[in-house]
């Protein structure tokens, strides 16, 4: 069972396996496929990117803009011969040979959704046999993409696809992950790329959300209602006056398939063929009948029909959008008729609930880029994130970090605030989300929300001695404070760190700490609890480090951060030394989820950690029975 959340209600098949592959192996795969199939894909020809047969695997382009024409010509060709006939005496009909089986590389998610729509339309009732033949014999290989400002696939829910393909190639790390989507796809790998097939499965990548800048202001499900109320709207007349009737919108649309049927005779008149050619509902001739009547005689009516068909009729019939938001129609429309703009203007007028303040806005992360990755230990990595805007926070606060498709989790900010756009978090690979974070590289994107919580108020700490007590991963929070202190070291007195962990590997930032200690910036005392090994660090618990501690509690602030069990011993030790309850700060973390004090998951008795903590002065939590393990 793949650890995937259900996306858009579509089930992921249990046969999905993800394997890594490099470009060279994919070339070999293509070469092997070419011996049995006709392989088609995007390649550069005469300075343009065109879909055609691939003769040289290295010419296959797997990263191309949405501008490239759709692959519908391979499933529903223009000028397809329905049959041949011979004249003279009895008319003889000969069916056409079927075309060879094909592998179609380079289906963007929108294209794959478009195929589902073509299936709905052409296979219902009496299934179109030519389409069926081509469809069944075509192997679909998807590839991911970057939207441009004409795409509005996010609004249509077609920017990501979980099924409907045999294989899907994901760009990853300068290389690829191949996702199988069907038993046929798996068999193809086994037969034509055994080296790839033999590889063990990898954890899946989360579904890539496109975040198109262009889009609908209403939900696409409401479009039928919106359009119903707009049948006589003057906008159709306006569009009709702009429209050139060139049919580019239909010719390029991956879900358009309307056609005309006519006969072609051979020159010698002995025979001929009946063919079907792509038509456009924007042409004059589309609805003309013998006798001269034209049932959709104005361009306004024709454009209206196009919008109604894609966004209302088809959706109501098949419960699926008829438009995949690929933007091809608007990209190449000389009159710049743009669907989302048209639909938004209709929606706006209908006094529907307007999405000016989009619900869920506060849950939408902004995108941050991974600026650097530093390996701290076998299971821990430091990620440096670059946000879009400068960020201000107090040490000890946290960010909610998202990996889309896997979820969102809180991470303490491990760096000090410096007024810039970057901050650091430490990630231990423990679950799906953190393992996914570990797979990311510089340049990858994550979602971030925050900063949330209450941290250390530096103004309150200035002028004092600082005693930092850290256990295990608790150091991460205190690192933020420590870096902030070190940035203005002269404003503080003595700075002592008591740090204990299970084993030397678990001592995070050991080299940094030693450097500061040797530089006399920090009095750093370490202890590890595991026996064994010949590392020259003292054995014991953090509490043992209190023995030789010589401090003046009245001018010292203590900050404690560690596993829950640690607080019991250290707190009592601190009070024994003579610390005031106001001068002891605790890092109490719970399962912060929303960060906004709403979800309730981080409650300690009657307070929310995300609102009031996680940095609390002891005086604030002494009455909370759940705060500290007694």
């Amino acid at each position: 069972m793949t650890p995937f959340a259900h996306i858009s209600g579509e089930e992921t098949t249990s046969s999905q396996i993800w394997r890594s592959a490099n470009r060279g192996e994919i070339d070999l795969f293509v070469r092997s496929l070419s011996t049995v199939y006709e392989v088609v894909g995007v390649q550069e020809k005469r300075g343009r990117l065109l879909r055609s047969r691939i003769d040289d695997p290295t010419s296959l382009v797997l990263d191309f803009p949405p501008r490239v024409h759709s692959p519908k010509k391979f499933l529903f060709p223009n000028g397809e011969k329905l049959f041949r006939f011979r004249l003279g005496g009895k008319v003889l009909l000969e069916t056409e040979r079927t075309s060879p089986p094909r592998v179609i590389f380079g289906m963007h998610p929108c294209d794959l959704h478009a195929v589902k729509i073509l299936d709905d339309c052409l296979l219902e009732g009496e299934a179109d046999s030519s389409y069926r033949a081509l469809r069944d014999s075509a192997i679909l290989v998807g590839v991911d993409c970057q939207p441009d400002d004409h795409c509005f696939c996010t609004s249509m829910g077609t920017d990501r696809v979980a099924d409907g393909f045999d294989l899907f190639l994901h760009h990853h790390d300068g290389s690829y992950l191949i996702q199988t989507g069907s038993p046929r796809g798996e068999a193809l790998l086994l037969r034509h790329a055994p080296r790839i097939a033999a590889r063990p499965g990898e954890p899946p990548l989360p579904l890539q959300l496109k975040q198109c800048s262009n889009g609908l202001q209403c939900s696409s499900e409401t479009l039928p209602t919106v359009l119903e109320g707009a049948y006589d709207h003057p906008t159709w007349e306006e569009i009709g006056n702009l429209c050139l009737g060139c049919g580019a919108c239909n010719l390029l649309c991956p879900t358009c398939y309307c056609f005309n049927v006519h006969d072609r005779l051979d020159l010698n008149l002995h025979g001929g063929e009946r063919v079907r050619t792509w038509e456009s509902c924007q042409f004059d001739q589309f609805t003309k009948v013998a006798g001269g009547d034209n049932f959709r005689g104005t361009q306004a009516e024709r454009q209206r029909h196009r919008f109604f068909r894609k966004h209302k009729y088809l959706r109501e019939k098949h419960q699926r959008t008829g438009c995949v938001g690929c933007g091809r129609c608007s990209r190449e429309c000389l009159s710049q008729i743009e669907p989302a703009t048209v639909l938004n203007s209709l929606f706006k007028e209908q006094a529907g609930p307007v999405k000016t303040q989009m619900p869920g806005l506060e849950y939408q992360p902004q995108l941050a880029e991974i600026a650097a990755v530093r390996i701290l230990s076998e299971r821990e990595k430091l990620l440096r994130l670059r946000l879009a805007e400068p960020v201000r926070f107090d040490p000890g606060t946290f960010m909610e970090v998202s990996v889309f498709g896997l979820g969102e989790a809180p991470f303490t900010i491990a760096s000090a605030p410096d007024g810039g756009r970057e901050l650091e978090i430490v990630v231990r690979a423990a679950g799906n989300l953190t393992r996914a974070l570990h797979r990311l590289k510089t340049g990858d994107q994550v979602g971030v929300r925050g900063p949330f919580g209450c941290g250390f108020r530096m103004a309150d700490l200035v002028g004092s001695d600082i005693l930092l007590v850290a256990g295990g991963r608790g150091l991460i929070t205190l690192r933020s404070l420590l870096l902030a202190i070190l940035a203005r070291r002269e404003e503080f007195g003595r700075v002592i760190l008591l740090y204990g962990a299970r084993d030397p590997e678990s001592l995070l930032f050991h080299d940094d700490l030693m450097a500061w200690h040797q530089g006399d910036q920090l009095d750093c005392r370490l202890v590890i609890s595991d026996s064994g090994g010949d590392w020259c660090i003292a054995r014991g618990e953090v509490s043992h480090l209190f023995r030789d501690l010589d401090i003046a509690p009245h001018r010292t602030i203590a900050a404690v951060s560690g596993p829950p069990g640690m607080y019991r011993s250290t707190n009592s030790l601190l009070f024994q030394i003579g610390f005031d309850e106001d001068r002891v700060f605790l890092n109490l973390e719970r399962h912060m989820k929303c960060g906004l004090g709403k979800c309730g998951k981080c409650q300690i008795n009657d307070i929310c950690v995300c609102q009031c903590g996680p940095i609390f002065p002891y005086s604030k939590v002494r009455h909370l029975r759940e705060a500290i393990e007694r």
Partner: protein
Amino acid sequence: MKPRIGFFDFAGCEGCQLTVLNLEDRLLELLDMVEIVEFREISSGGGDPLDIAFVEGSVGPRDEIERLRKIRKKTKSLVALGACADTGGINSLSRFQTASTLQQTVYGETAAPPPVALLRPLHDFVAVDHRLPGCPIDGEEFLAVLQALLLGRPPELPGYSVCVECKLAELPCLFDTGQICLGPIARAGCGARCVQGGSRCRGCRGEMENPRSNPYYRILTDHGLTEEEIRDQYRLFNLPEKEDR
């Protein structure tokens, strides 16, 4: 008896007739089906009557008008072959200069320059039954029209614009590169050959059925053309409507 067809030419370059000859191996097949009774460029024969007369070139001087009328009389069907015969073609441009300018420019200060007779498409003088547009015509279209005529069917030319053929050929739109193209109002049927060849559509096949002039005009002005320039572009191969003359 095989249908009798003839080829005639007036003021033109004979490129359309040459395009028929360029059908090469299909020409042999064609010759099995029809009898070419007259084809001045490659034949010394002649004769009446004709079933189909293909006439290339524009007409101007009086004796040429007479000759055209004689051809019209002796043929059942008359087909305008190519832009010069159909819309005036490139000859149309002389329409926009005065007679004296034309004479002076071409023949200078000669004693007796030839008279200027403005060149017009065939339909200004005789009834034209069918047409083959383009400069030059498209050989395949010629065969299709001929076949339709032999079968007694009215020939059908595409009514939509060259844009359709450009899109089917997956060509990038010239307007995107800041160039002007007459494709959106020009009649398709040439396979967007000029755009394929790196050039642009100059509208040599005449207008599509029901050209959407208003939005096209707007697009041209958006691209910075003045009204004069727009008219100039259009007129390269097409004589304006009768009212305009």
